[in-house]
């Protein structure tokens, strides 16, 4: 394990969970620092400058959303929140406060590692979209520079909002983007109508997915938002 391997800050109060995560992460060549409380988590984020933060939302001394906000005040480090099912409000709160992704307890190691990889990749690439890049998924090819979308050989015509929606998702590929973030990006600040988003998402699926009712790429995270997969569902 070299000093160049990524450093993960694990903020989790359950010793059993830390006991399972620690060896698993180390086995994958990550370095791990552990915090048991929110306050300790923020302090360690300051002092250790980790590459990814794994943050449990249910901490004894405070709310994970607040921790997210505090870290975001000075750092762009990817934050993945861990929460129980049925706590969608907390999750959305943390994501809107600046968290990058989330995991639902219980989760398997494969799922966790996939999220970690996405987070690290985004961190390496930087927050800015690559202006000249071309993004492909399935048979869809999006030329961000020329603002064209092709499916196979045929060009697909998207409306301005559909295109903006797609680009926002591409910029965050692999990560969930909340409804609020998408509305904000596509329709501008103050937009409230979640159903616009749903309708445009449906149109996008009609144009880009093979079976719009069973999308392989444009996934729904019910109650949270949407995500463009970096690996197909099937």
């Amino acid at each position, binding site marked *: 394990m070299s000093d160049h391997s990524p450093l993960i800050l694990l903020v989790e109060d359950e010793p059993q969970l830390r006991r399972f995560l620690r060896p698993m992460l180390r086995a994958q060549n990550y370095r791990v620092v552990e915090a048991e409380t929110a306050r300790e988590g923020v302090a360690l984020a300051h002092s250790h400058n980790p590459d990814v933060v794994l943050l449990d939302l249910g901490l004894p001394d405070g709310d994970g959303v607040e921790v997210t906000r505090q870290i975001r005040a000075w750092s762009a480090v990817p934050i993945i929140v861990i929460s129980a*099912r*049925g706590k*969608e409000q907390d999750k959305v709160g943390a994501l809107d406060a600046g968290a990058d992704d989330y995991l639902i307890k*219980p989760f*398997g190691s494969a799922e966790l590692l996939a999220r970690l990889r996405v987070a690290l990749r985004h961190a390496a690439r930087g927050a800015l979209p690559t202006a000249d890049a071309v993004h492909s998924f399935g048979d869809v090819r999006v030329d961000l520079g020329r*603002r064209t979308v092709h499916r196979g050989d045929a060009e697909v*015509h*998207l*409306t*301005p*909002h*559909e*295109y903006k929606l797609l680009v926002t998702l591409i910029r965050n590929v692999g990560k969930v983007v909340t409804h609020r973030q998408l509305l904000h990006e596509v329709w501008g600040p103050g937009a409230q*109508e*979640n*159903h*616009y988003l*749903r*309708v*445009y*998402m*449906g149109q996008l*699926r009609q144009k880009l997915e093979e*079976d*719009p*009712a*069973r*999308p392989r790429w444009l*996934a*729904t*995270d*019910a*109650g949270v938002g949407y995500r463009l997969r970096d690996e197909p*569902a*099937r």
Partner: protein
Amino acid sequence: MRSTDELARPNPEALLAVAARADGARGQLKIFFGAAPGVGKTFAMLEAARRAQAEGLDVVVGVIETHGREETAALLAGLPALPLRPLSHRGIALQEFDLDAALKRRPGLLLIDELAHTNAPGSRHPKRWQDVFELLAAGIHVHTTLNVQHLESLNDVVAQITWIRVRETIPDAVFDRADDVEFVDLPPDALLERLREGRVYLPEQARQAAHAFFRKGNLLALRELALRRMAQRVDSDVQAYRREHGIATIWPAGERLLVCVGPGPRGTRLVRAAARIATSMRAEWIAVNVETPALALAGAAERDQLAGSLRLAESLGAEVLVLVDETVADALIRLAGERNVTRIVVGKPTRTRWRDRLRRSLLRDLVRGSDGIDIHVITGDREAMAKPSRRPSSEHSPVAHYLWCVALVAALTAVDSLLFPYVDLTDLVMQYIVGIMLAAVRFGPGPATMTAVLSVAAFDFFYVPPYYTFAVSDGKYVLTFAVMLAVGLLISTLTARIRMQVEAARVRERRTAALYSLSRELAQLRHKVSIATCAARHIGETLGARVAVLLVDERGQLMPVEGTDAQLVADPRELGVARWAFEHGPAGRDTETLPGAAATHLPLVAAGRTIGVLTVERGRRSRDTATDQLLETLGSQTALALHRVLLAQEAQAAELRARAEELRSSLLSSVSHDLRTPLATITGAATTLLEGGPGLPREVHHDLADAIREEAERLARLVGNLLDMSRLESGELVLKREWTPIEEPIGAALDRLEGHLAGREVDVHVEPGLPLVALDALLMEQLLMNLLENTMKYTPPGTPITITATRDGESIVLELLDRGPGIPEEALPRIFDKFVRAGGPPGMQGVGLGLAICRAVAEAHGGSITAGKRPGGGAVFRVTLPIGGEAPSVPAEESE
């Protein structure tokens, strides 16, 4: 005749009364009882109060008039007194005892002078004794004073002795209800001495009467009356003692007295007489009014007197009944038989003897029909000599009717003048008789009688020689006239009778119909609000009144039911009267309590339970005993219907509790099994891995780890379902409905189950152009996931699954179709119940919550879920969701 000295058999009411008296919650009433003003009752009461105060009791003066007497004032000093309540009546400032202040103050003993006092208008009760009863009911002990002439049953006797009728009376029951009566005695000579010294207070207006009242003869008679009443009371105290201590002698069957009350002023005297007889015999008594056809047409004044007599009887302790029959005697004899009546009290007939002979006499019929029943006949008095009023003016035939009759006779005479030369005189007589019949049928008895007289006159004048004079030459015509007149009068009487009977029958019919239609409609209603509105409408229509029904709402407040005339209790004071009625009994107009209120408030009582209040505002004229009774009957019908609903609700609640209990136990057994099985597997597999170490073959290692993962996932699902269910059921869950295309939750559910679908063929058919649906995306995803999981569990691996979404009117229908074994017929009705697992392969696991959650989610959305057979084999689950209106539009755009 049985001896009246024997003890009456204790009835349950008497025993209950003893129990109620022994109950410490009720206040004790002590009466200082005297024969006349000035004997020193107030003085005696104050002395007793001071003794009580010395013993440490909290004695408070409610109201006492010292009338400027020094001895009394001296005794009052040192006793705290409640301030009187100022009242204003027609501009005159009055002061009254403040009942509410007394109730609030809750003294240990309250002193209230002059029990028979009539409160000023605007007080809660018209009589002071009613104030006292409310105090007693509130557990406050009361001392009070009373003179013998104020006792209701002795009212007539006192009037006969003193020639002064006392207006302020109290029912004897109040006197009997007293826990203790102390007789304050002063010999007449001493009293007269005090009077001469000016030591007896007399109000200004009574000064003149006082001279007549305070005669030695009067005072002696009053003292005797008071002593006798006192002796009677002591006797009943002895009886009460024996009853309480179970000293049983032979209990004879009780005497039961029946008094027949008719309309007119004699009624009250009759009632008082009956009350005296009943009290002296310690007999139960019944006051009855028989509604004969003739009575139905009695004048309003007479009906009011009748109602007054019956109310008096009720206040004197009688059971009051109104019967409907053709004749009074038949009704009385039948009732006497039914109720084991031993004596019947009737008034002496005022008719002259010959009329008695002509008509059927009540007395004669009674005596004939009443084997073994004693008949008491009470004589009339001066009051009774007042002629009963005839039919009221409003029911008199209008003048027009008489004019029509004159015209009729004139017309007949004109026609007859044409016929006269050709027909016999007898035929002309026949014509006139037809005219009289016409008048009787069309205009009633008065005009008919007049027509008869006019006809005779006209016939005589025009057609009986000598013509154009009333003189008669031939004596035989006198007979013709007599017969003509007699026939005319007979016809008019008969017709009048028939009309009366028709009228009476119509009134009865109306009541029966009202009652019948109300009870029939109420029987179909299942909700208390609908019962209340239905009853209010019926009662309002039947009585021509405004009606409100008040029920206790969720906050425990008595409030008018919407849909009934809530305006009646819009005034907080009126609502206050209604609330008082709810707790204590009838109140408001036409009752003894708060008669100044605008409406009558009757508590709705069924099975001893007060459910609500019926508030009725009737026109002034529409009140009599019969409508009172009708109102009461309609009210009790309503109360019964409401009670039925309440009982049903309670039974339902009890059943719900029982079902919850059952569920809890099945949950426990289910959960304990389903939690333990995966835990056992996990523990076993993990320990094998630990202990086996590196020696285990690689595949075994992998299998064990996989078993742990699988079982853990199952546990997670189970716990998730339990949590979902409890959240859905606790009601804490608020639906977050957003306009969503139906494909989205379908896609999301399939996506999340991707790993479990294990390559099954899943066809999704969504009808093109479906509108957005207002749904909670997360819950809908949960529903679909649970349905899919259920299908995968119950169908062989690899069999295809189809999901369709179509529109059906204002709903979206989602169907999940499989080609599995289908659902057993007998399992269908319960498949969506909690903890139900229908058939399925052996070793099947799961708590049986998945489909219950589906139903809960569907119902939370206002939709439904059903299951059935799929044509061609397999099962179909059908979820119907309301679209939820029209989604806001999304602005269209051009593509780039």
